[in-house]
């Protein structure tokens, strides 16, 4: 009969981080905190997400303004996941707040299996400026109790990127699900079920 073995640190961290991810996905637009991966670097939180969810069964892609080679190498080393083209990737890691069209190009699932849509992980920059456009943005939908919606907790995401997500998710339940992480482990999710309105 199986008995209990002392769990390793990695097992415990992945479990805790998953619960944080699950809470974040269940409560779109709100701020949560992951345990980031040491040594802390620019993408420490994104790598913690990767380690929690990715392995050799999964294909991923990286996009962003800066060179994403090292980012992709770090994800592959941390997880054993294979690199895939943007339209085939299960996970798309975005370096910085600007997706450079990733939201529009990523897989959105099929009408029979909408869950085949990709997950985008935006690894935000610690120094990014807050976008004033956020005062006009309202999120509503499952996981959000307020009838009139809430403003997203992370204000450095360009309003244009949120618009791109809203466009990608216009044919709900087809769509993509987005996670935004800061280097310190802060996390916010915007699943496709969240309506993003510009007032």
């Amino acid at each position: 009969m199986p008995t209990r073995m002392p769990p390793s640190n990695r097992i415990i961290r992945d479990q805790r981080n998953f619960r944080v991810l699950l809470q974040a996905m269940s409560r779109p637009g709100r701020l949560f905190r992951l345990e980031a991966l040491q040594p802390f670097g620019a993408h420490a939180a994104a790598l913690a997400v990767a380690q929690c969810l990715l392995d050799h069964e999964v294909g991923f892609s990286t996009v962003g303004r800066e060179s994403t080679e090292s980012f992709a190498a770090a994800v592959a080393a941390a997880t054993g996941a294979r690199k895939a083209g943007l339209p085939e990737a299960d996970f798309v890691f975005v370096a910085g707040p600007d997706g450079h069209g990733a939201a529009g190009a990523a897989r959105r699932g099929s009408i029979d299996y909408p869950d085949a849509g990709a997950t985008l992980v935006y690894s935000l920059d610690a120094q990014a400026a807050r976008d004033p456009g956020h005062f006009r943005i309202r999120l509503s939908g499952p996981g959000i109790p307020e009838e009139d919606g809430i403003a997203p907790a992370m204000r450095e995401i360009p309003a244009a990127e949120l618009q791109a997500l809203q466009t990608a998710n216009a044919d709900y339940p087809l769509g993509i699900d987005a996670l935004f992480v800061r280097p310190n482990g802060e996390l916010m999710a915007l699943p496709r079920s969240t309506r993003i309105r510009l007032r």
Partner: protein
Amino acid sequence: MSTVVHPTPAPPADWRASCAPGHGRTSFAFLDEGAKREIRRRMLKAVAIPGCQVPFGSREMPIARGWGTGGLQLTLALIGPEDVLKVIDQGADDSVNAVSIRRFVTRVTGVRTTTDTPAATLIQTRHRVPEEPLRPHQILVFQVPIPEPLRLVEPSEVETRRMHAEADYSRMWLYLYEDIVTYGEITIGARYPVLVNRRHLMDPSPIPRWDVARLNRNPALMLFCAGREKRIYALPPHTLVEPLEFEDFGFRTESFAGRRCMHCGSTQSFLDEIIAEAAGRRRYACSDSAFCQKTRKAGGGLTHRPADGGRTP
């Protein structure tokens, strides 16, 4: 070749120890970590598309298919050392299947368990939603025998997939309509179909109609899993969940009018019917055993919101 690497090389003098049975296996919560990752990925997708059935590579568990392997896989993929677990079957913590599942999970994780609903962080359930209200930090995991609400009207998976894709639920509506025409009543007992987020028809698992209103805009996350049918689905907190009903023919819950629990005297909980002795005299007791005990301790004074939203005729 392997996913587990021992960082420090062992001197071969120890080779006998390294060949001993069970050496080097680190497993927490029974499932291997690859299985957990897959289930976790699917859970996140299920939450992102409320009420949509997400396929997953269901693993074989040491309990039989149909006995809660789906719920158990979610519990094991969710659980961590800080959790406090509650397991109920038919509302009761001491029902044989609940005992068996609780025993297994504690054996492979060592987590604390409770029967007290508010004290639990993770609740695995079969056929009931606890009577006491859930809180935002709690997760309720349902064991699901048949995840497809349309199975009642269509046996083919290909066809039901299409119906969900097109949000074409006309055959379900027709079924309810014909039921009313034939019987003057909707005859569905438990497993009453609900519409989630105004988009996906969902099987709430075989909970009584009494519990259906508790799904609507509940502050806790609810996860559903059918191990045999390999489907996960979810209700994020505060999600709109509506039972199918006609404007002039509303959804109705079970009625226990004029009856009370023989132990705690509650008139506001779902009751089990018990045949006492050979005389065949009927008596009633709370299905939620933890709620019943609490009510008794409080001298019958524990009050809470009726589950039916005042719809009982």
